[in-house]
């Protein structure tokens, strides 16, 4: 862990009686694209504002490049923030906005001009350098805000919901661009977002936060494939769940005796180390791992649950629907549209849902 960019140690922030950030510890590596993902009110914005120095922690410490940030005001921190609203200076041109940070550092004029030029090239805004922010489109304003931070070559670039104000198409495009630029400049990026696809696509690693706490930290595939708790399972992707108790645990394999759905021979699951028979758990399965077969077929090796289609709709690349498999248990299904545009199953039809035991993730109920 020699190459740490940010070391957050047991950080606490109270807003009145509420714990906005609850003993958060995180290590962010140099050159990493790290995201803080969570619903609004999860504390991720408070955390970001403490990194920038706009809020003061009630306890704990933040180290950037090994140096404690306690008592260091925002204008003396080696970080630059890309604001959600961009906060571009409306009375300055694009080039003046980008030059602002370097002017504050009192760099020589020649160097400022050179670095501003290079950064405007990087975000492809060289031809708009003399425009005022109000004369730019949303995507262009976003790029100016990014350039204004990057030009200072800070130790850390902070991004607050960077793509939230853009429409869907532009968002996709900027997402790619942001990732490319980050790879080019090689700076540490810390990004706050509530948009899970965005976080998965952009990040090298991410932390899922809820109610001021970090629920899990890992690479996107770790969080999606092996969620450690239901918060992560539900927030990152769609989670189809069935509750029950473990039985016949042996050599990392076992059976789930489901409590809310009926299953002829139990559900085979891979059991994480440390869980024994009799423990109440939830098994969660991702929709795209489920095979849908019309009618109530007998399973052949794989896990199988029977249900009735409640809704099914067409979204182009696939069909998405809801299948009721128990009194109050509904699963979301995704049926590929790889072969034809015809409806795979009808509403009200009985179906069988099958999946491999390795695709069910066991989460202990605490």
């Amino acid at each position, binding site marked *: 862990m020699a190459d740490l960019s940010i070391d957050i140690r047991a950080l606490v922030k109270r807003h009145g009686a509420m714990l906005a950030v609850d003993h958060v510890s995180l290590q962010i590596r140099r050159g990493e694209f790290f995201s803080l993902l969570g619903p609004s009110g999860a504390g991720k914005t408070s955390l970001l504002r403490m990194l920038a120095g*706009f809020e003061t922690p009630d306890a704990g410490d933040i180290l950037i490049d090994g140096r404690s940030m306690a008592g260091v005001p925002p204008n003396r921190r080696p970080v630059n923030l890309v604001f959600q609203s961009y906060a571009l*200076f409306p009375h300055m041109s694009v080039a003046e906005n980008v030059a602002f*940070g370097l002017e504050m550092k009192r760099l020589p004029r020649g160097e400022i001009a050179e670095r501003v030029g290079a950064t405007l090239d990087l975000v492809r805004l060289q031809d708009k350098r003399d425009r005022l922010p109000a004369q730019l489109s949303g995507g262009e304003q976003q790029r100016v805000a990014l350039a204004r931070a990057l030009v200072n070559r800070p130790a850390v670039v902070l991004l607050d919901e960077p793509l939230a104000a853009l429409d869907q198409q532009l968002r996709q495009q900027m997402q790619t661009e942001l990732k490319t630029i980050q790879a080019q400049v090689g700076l540490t990026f810390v990004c706050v977002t509530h948009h899970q696809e965005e976080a998965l696509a952009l990040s090298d690693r991410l932390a899922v936060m809820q109610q001021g706490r970090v629920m899990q930290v890992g690479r996107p595939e770790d969080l999606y494939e092996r969620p450690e708790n239901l918060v992560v399972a539900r927030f990152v992707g769609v989670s189809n769940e069935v509750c029950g108790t473990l039985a016949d645990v042996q050599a990392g394999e076992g059976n789930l005796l489901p409590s809310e759905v009926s299953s002829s021979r139990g559900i085979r699951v891979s059991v994480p180390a440390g869980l024994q028979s009799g423990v109440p758990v939830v098994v969660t399965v991702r929709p795209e791992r489920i095979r849908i077969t019309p009618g109530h077929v007998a399973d052949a090796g794989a896990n199988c649950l029977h249900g009735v289609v409640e809704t099914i709709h067409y979204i182009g690349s696939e069909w998405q629907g809801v299948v009721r498999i128990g009194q109050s248990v509904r699963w979301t299904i995704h049926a590929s549209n790889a072969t034809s545009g015809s409806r795979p199953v009808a509403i009200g039809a009985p179906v069988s849902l099958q999946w491999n035991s390795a695709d069910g993730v066991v989460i202990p109920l605490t």
Partner: protein
Amino acid sequence: MRGQGIWLQSISGLGIAFLYLPIIVLVVFSFNASRLSATWQGFSWHWYGVLWHDEALLAAAANSLWVAVLSTSLVVLLGVPAAMGLERLRGRGRQALETIFLLPLVLPEVMMGVALLLFFVMIHWPLSLATVVVGHAAFNLPVVIVMVRARLQKLDPRLEEAASDLGASAWQTFYRVTWPLVRPAVLGAALLAFTISLDDFIVTFFVAGPGATTLPLKVYSMIKSGLSPEINALSSVLVLASMGLVGLSLMFQRR
């Protein structure tokens, strides 16, 4: 519906006529060749010439300009920091201070005049042009505060954070970001305060010392000795100047 439209139009037309007809008559008669104000005897620049050579009147005009310039400067120097301070304040203190600052806007001007007069007498400050300057500053301060705050409230508070994030000190943030953005509002407020000061009669009447005759006071004393077309000419000049200043002020507000 159509009938209603005509009614509304005529009523607003009457309203406008009621407001501006006297001023138009005044301006027209300032070009009257006659010695008497009431009858038209042909076009002439004569009264503007008389005006230009009336030493006492020009002295009063100079007084008025001085008072307006000084009181406006004073009010900007006090009002801008006050507005910024109010904007930053949180909690109950803000409400209280706000009310205290803005109350003079609704106080009857006569009361204001009497109060200021009593105050100056109490602290043994002899009435002079200086007391007029202070008096004008007193009623113009809320005007400046209201206008500058309106602008400050529209500013994104993130802008100051952005400046600070980019390495600017508090002073650099003010000088490079906040001030350029509120400057139009400050200019607009200053022009309005200047105009109000130039036109003020009541407070000036109470707090002006001997020899500290401003233009409105001079006009008042002149009409006591009969309506001369010279006053028409003077008033026309004032109307033009006031309109120009208010126009400029509006222009700065829009920016």
